[in-house]
């Protein structure tokens, strides 16, 4: 095993998704040992906290801290829910974990259940992921037959059930409380917080929701220790992270590298910018994170804190590369349309504001822009930002504010000339 391959640690094996392959890298040994030795949940929690593992779905919240909010001794059912509703534009890592290493996610979810006192888990997978759903279901079957799920797991007194749940096409369901609503069979409209899911979650019971990559990291953390994991990355940014390198790169792909890796090295791994072009801009963590100009990006490290220093966010590690020929107005138009399409409609600033943003950017792109449009866009974005129940509103505002901040001249050019700057578009 390469030391920095955490979630892809079976990738060198034939049929890496099978129980046999997973056992070859030491799979399920952590679970066996902790059940045999009746390891105290507090000890596991300590390791997870030491690992400095932060939520891989986008928010980067410390996983150990999130788990510690669960009232594990409270009687009655509690839940662990995995968020495999991968839909942030530019993100496609969970799909590959589900396809190529589903057992590691299953082991991670069982261990999570043991630690937080949950007897049931659900893995919410987006409905379009037919192949990943099939792989995950097949892995569940293997795990059940091997006595790794169900009652009295491996002869212990620990019971844990794990099920697949499927979505049906709604980006908003990646928001954790919308996901819970959807899992209850409703429209995916986010809930007010508080109460947080650890107090009032699925069916009103204490619930923890973690991303696929987060949960799949758990078995490896416990196999080699929290400190080991932490040291792979940087201070407070433990472990490796999968980066989805997409857009104008020569070798697009999912690259799992230590947090703190310089962006320039990651870009090199992905074969550099296409056709030898120069780097214009990068969206480092999926479309919900602010765009960063290329020259600035080349000085940043790929960690939560490193990208934070550049005025953006690591998000889900969805790195969208744009070369010199990209028209930033057109790119923003497409992103704005996405949030307009996916707003759930619950909060007025988001429901109405995302439509405004899209229509104004569209008219600028089509050569019908007015001088006051730039300030109007910023004004609308500011009025959405922070004024909605969930983060989709902020996510719609961030690209608009950052694109105009860094590439205002291009927007101005469109307004003045009615078309793209030379060499773009």
């Amino acid at each position: 095993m390469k030391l920095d391959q955490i979630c892809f640690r079976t990738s060198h094996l034939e049929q890496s998704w099978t129980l046999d392959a997973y056992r070859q890298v030491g799979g399920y040994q952590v679970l066996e040992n902790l059940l045999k030795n009746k390891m105290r949940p507090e000890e596991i929690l300590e390791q997870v906290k030491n690992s400095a593992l932060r939520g891989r779905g986008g928010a980067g919240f410390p996983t150990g801290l999130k788990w510690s909010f669960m009232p594990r001794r409270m009687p009655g059912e509690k839940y662990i829910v995995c968020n495999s509703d991968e839909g942030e534009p530019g993100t496609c890592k969970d799909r590959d974990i589900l396809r190529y290493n589903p057992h590691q996610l299953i082991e991670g979810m069982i261990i999570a259940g043991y630690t937080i006192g949950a007897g049931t888990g659900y893995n919410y997978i987006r409905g379009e992921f037919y192949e990943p759903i099939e792989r995950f279901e097949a892995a569940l079957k293997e795990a059940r037959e091997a006595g790794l799920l169900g009652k009295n797991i491996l002869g212990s007194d620990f019971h844990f059930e794990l099920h697949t749940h499927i979505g049906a096409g709604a980006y908003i369901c990646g928001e954790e409380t919308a996901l819970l609503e959807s899992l209850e069979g409703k429209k995916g409209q986010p809930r007010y917080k508080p109460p947080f899911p650890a107090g009032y979650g699925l069916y009103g019971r204490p619930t923890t929701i973690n991303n696929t990559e987060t949960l799949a990291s758990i078995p490896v953390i416990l196999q080699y220790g929290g400190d080991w994991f932490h040291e792979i990355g940087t201070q407070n940014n433990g472990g490796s992270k999968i980066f989805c390198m997409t857009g104008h790169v020569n070798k697009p792909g999912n690259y799992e590298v230590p947090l703190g890796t310089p962006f320039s090295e990651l870009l090199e791994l992905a074969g550099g910018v296409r056709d030898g072009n120069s780097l214009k801009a990068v969206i480092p963590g999926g479309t919900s994170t602010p765009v960063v100009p290329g020259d600035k990006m080349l000085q940043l490290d790929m960690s939560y804190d490193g990208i934070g220093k550049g005025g953006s966010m690591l998000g889900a590690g969805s790195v969208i590369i744009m070369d010199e020929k990209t028209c930033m107005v057109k790119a923003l138009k497409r992103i704005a349309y996405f949030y307009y399409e996916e707003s759930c409609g619950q909060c007025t600033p988001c429901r109405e504001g995302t439509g405004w943003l899209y229509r104004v950017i569209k008219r600028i792109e089509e050569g019908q822009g007015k001088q006051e449009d730039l300030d109007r866009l910023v004004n609308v974005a500011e009025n959405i930002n922070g004024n909605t129940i969930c983060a989709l509103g902020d996510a719609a505002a961030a690209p608009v504010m950052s694109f105009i901040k860094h590439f205002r001249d291009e927007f101005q050019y469109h307004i003045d000339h009615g078309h793209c700057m030379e060499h773009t578009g």
Partner: protein
Amino acid sequence: MTEMLLTGPKEGLFTETLREQMDTWIAKYPAGQAQSAVIPCLHILQAANEGWLTTAIMDALASYLSIPAISVYEVATFYTMFELSPVGKHKISVCTNISCMLCGSEKVMQHIEQKLNIKPGQTTEDGLFTLKEVECLGACVGAPMMLVDKQYHEFLTEDKIDDILDRLNS
């Protein structure tokens, strides 16, 4: 098309096979939480009804799950994978979101539009294909991509698209 029974006592609704499939899902959720199965059940029923949902099917599902009909309508209208009017035999969903756009999804869409002589949202006259423009499908490293029925197709080129569609056409 499977002949479904859409009225009468819930024990006899749909078909035995469909009830079995839906019951497998319902069993995953706690007692009294059958509503959780509404999305998986709608997928099953849509697939059994040539790819779309009728009001009668939704009403029958509401009876089957013992929930109000409005709860089923709300879900069926909220999620984009559910179709409320007839669709072609094959559904083509082309992603045009940012990573795919940067890799040429506009050309992909144009090529399919010309080849099938339809626009997104339309179905070919022979009822074989429905074309849709969709948001990110989570396969961005394989951009440009599309989903045809249950299959992802990545790194699309015009030749590749021709191959895929011609195979379905023959």
